């Protein structure tokens, strides 16, 4: 039971990060129908930029939280600028091109950013210095660090702010109008190009925050980290219903929990002895003897769960949990 609660807690932390990244995917998709596959790389740039600053300041005697905040304060504008530039030079010229063109461009931008990051930060893993308290609290039998608590709270606060921005402000109204009918929003005086640029910049700011969180959570960052993280966040966005903000938040948290539980139990689930102990009548006891009491797959196979979820969603509910029917958009 302790393992179960621990994995739920870990999943919530991970899911908060996925949700922040998934929001970037879903906002851009909602407003221009584009899957920005380079978004994961923006997270990576945010993480590495912040780490560079944090490592510089780590020995300076400043308090740890200040050091991390300084890293975040540099990473956010760097990512916002990156998002702005990507939209301006890679996607805007393709605004009216067939849909495959911007998609392939997105993959190209993703590769380009990875290579640039590799030149800049090298191939090494960069470690997050121990500037934050890491002694865990015990809550309901689960260990939880301050960093994890802050990740969940900060993600929740950021997402609430985003929700208010989109649903309660003039700018958010213009974003929703643009996402539905760009040409008519333009008739209403909305400068659609500015709204699209703003959407990229906003998504990139969330990506920077997620990048700092993920590197603090795993204590590491490297130039290749954006790829898998981006794919998982994309999966979360699809799970929730791409284009739907609430869906991205829900999908992110769900995916985090699924992955975490999967990592916790994959050893048992691929162990014949575990099955024979739990199935009525000890079914499979022979296989248990034959293969021994061990799981075939360890928690390093946790990544398969996200893609398992992606396949299930695409087969059984392509519009996602909270998405509308795909046909309505066409």
């Amino acid at each position, binding site marked *: 039971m302790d393992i179960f609660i621990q994995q739920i807690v870990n999943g919530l932390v991970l899911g908060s990060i996925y949700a922040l990244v998934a929001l970037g995917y879903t906002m851009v998709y909602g407003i221009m129908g584009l899957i920005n596959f380079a978004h994961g790389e923006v997270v990576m740039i945010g993480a590495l930029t912040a780490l560079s600053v944090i490592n510089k300041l780590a020995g300076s005697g400043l308090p740890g939280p200040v050091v991390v905040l300084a890293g975040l304060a540099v990473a956010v504008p760097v990512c916002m600028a990156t998002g702005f530039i990507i939209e301006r030079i890679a996607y805007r010229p393709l605004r009216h091109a067939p849909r495959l063109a911007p998609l392939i461009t997105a993959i190209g931008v993703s590769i380009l950013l990875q290579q640039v990051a590799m030149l800049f930060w090298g191939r090494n893993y960069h470690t997050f210095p121990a500037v934050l308290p890491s002694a865990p609290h015990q809550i309901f039998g689960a260990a939880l660090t301050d960093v994890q608590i802050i990740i969940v709270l900060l993600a929740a606060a950021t997402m609430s702010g985003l929700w208010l921005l989109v649903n309660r402000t003039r700018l958010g109204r*213009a974003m929703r109008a643009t996402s539905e009918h760009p040409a008519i929003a333009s008739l*209403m005086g909305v400068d659609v190009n500015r709204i699209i640029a703003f959407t990229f910049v906003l998504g990139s700011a969330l990506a920077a925050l997620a990048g700092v969180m993920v590197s603090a959570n795993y204590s590491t960052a490297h130039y290749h980290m954006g790829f898998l993280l981006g794919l998982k966040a994309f999966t979360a966005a699809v799970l929730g219903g791409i284009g739907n903000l609430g869906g991205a938040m829900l999908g992110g948290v769900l995916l985090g929990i699924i992955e975490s539980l999967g990592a916790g139990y994959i050893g048992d689930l691929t162990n014949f002895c575990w099955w024979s102990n739990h199935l009525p009548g000890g079914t499979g006891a022979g296989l248990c003897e034959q293969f021994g009491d061990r799981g075939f797959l360890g928690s390093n196979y946790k990544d398969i769960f996200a893609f398992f979820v992606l396949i299930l969603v695409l087969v059984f509910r392509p519009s996602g949990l909270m998405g509308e029917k795909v046909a309505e958009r066409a």
Partner: protein
Amino acid sequence: MKAPMLAVKDLRVAYGGIQAVKGIDFEVGTGETVCLIGANGAGKTSTLKALARMLPASGSILYRGGDISHCPPHALIGQGLTLVPEGRGVFARLSVEENLDMGAYHRAAAADIADDLARVYQLLPRLKERRTQLAGTLSGGEQQMLALGRALMARPQLLLLDEPSMGLAPLMVRKVFEVVHSIAEQGVSILLVEQNARLALTVSARGYVMESGLITLADRADRLLGDSRVRQAYLGGE
């Protein structure tokens, strides 16, 4: 006729290799209601879209004396030129009131906007009843009312109306035209595109008949209503 609100010369619109509008001249006077009638595919909607800068066009478009043929589309509404597009174009996933607020997006003075909202609700009480509802849940007629209300929130000087009667039940068509008439009475210039030629000519001072991208007839509305060619082609004989 008073000084023209809109003066169009040699307007040509081509897209996808098709010449939809082949060089037309027309005018809309200040405070005047003018209609553009003609069969499906005559180029009426293309003309309006070109005026709203949604389609590339050549020729000169003088609006209140200034050339707007190089103006970006989102800058027109601030100059008082508003299009109510064919098919209404309400934002289905925004509430009725949010749709109306979008009409005033370019305006800054919150007090004035609140006044205008009250005026629109007075003119279209149905919208007030449904203000929190998503626009996509409204009936076709209500959506047309919303599109008109949204356009009014922009404080237009020239309103371009594209087929406001399309797809509506006869009773609703009459209501929509009552609203159009009351907008005209407030002094707003209107360029109306309609397939329902009789109705359009009844509310207009002048009319233009378009055929295959060209204007073939231009006259006072009452004379067009009596014209044998118009009666034959667009008013169902008699």
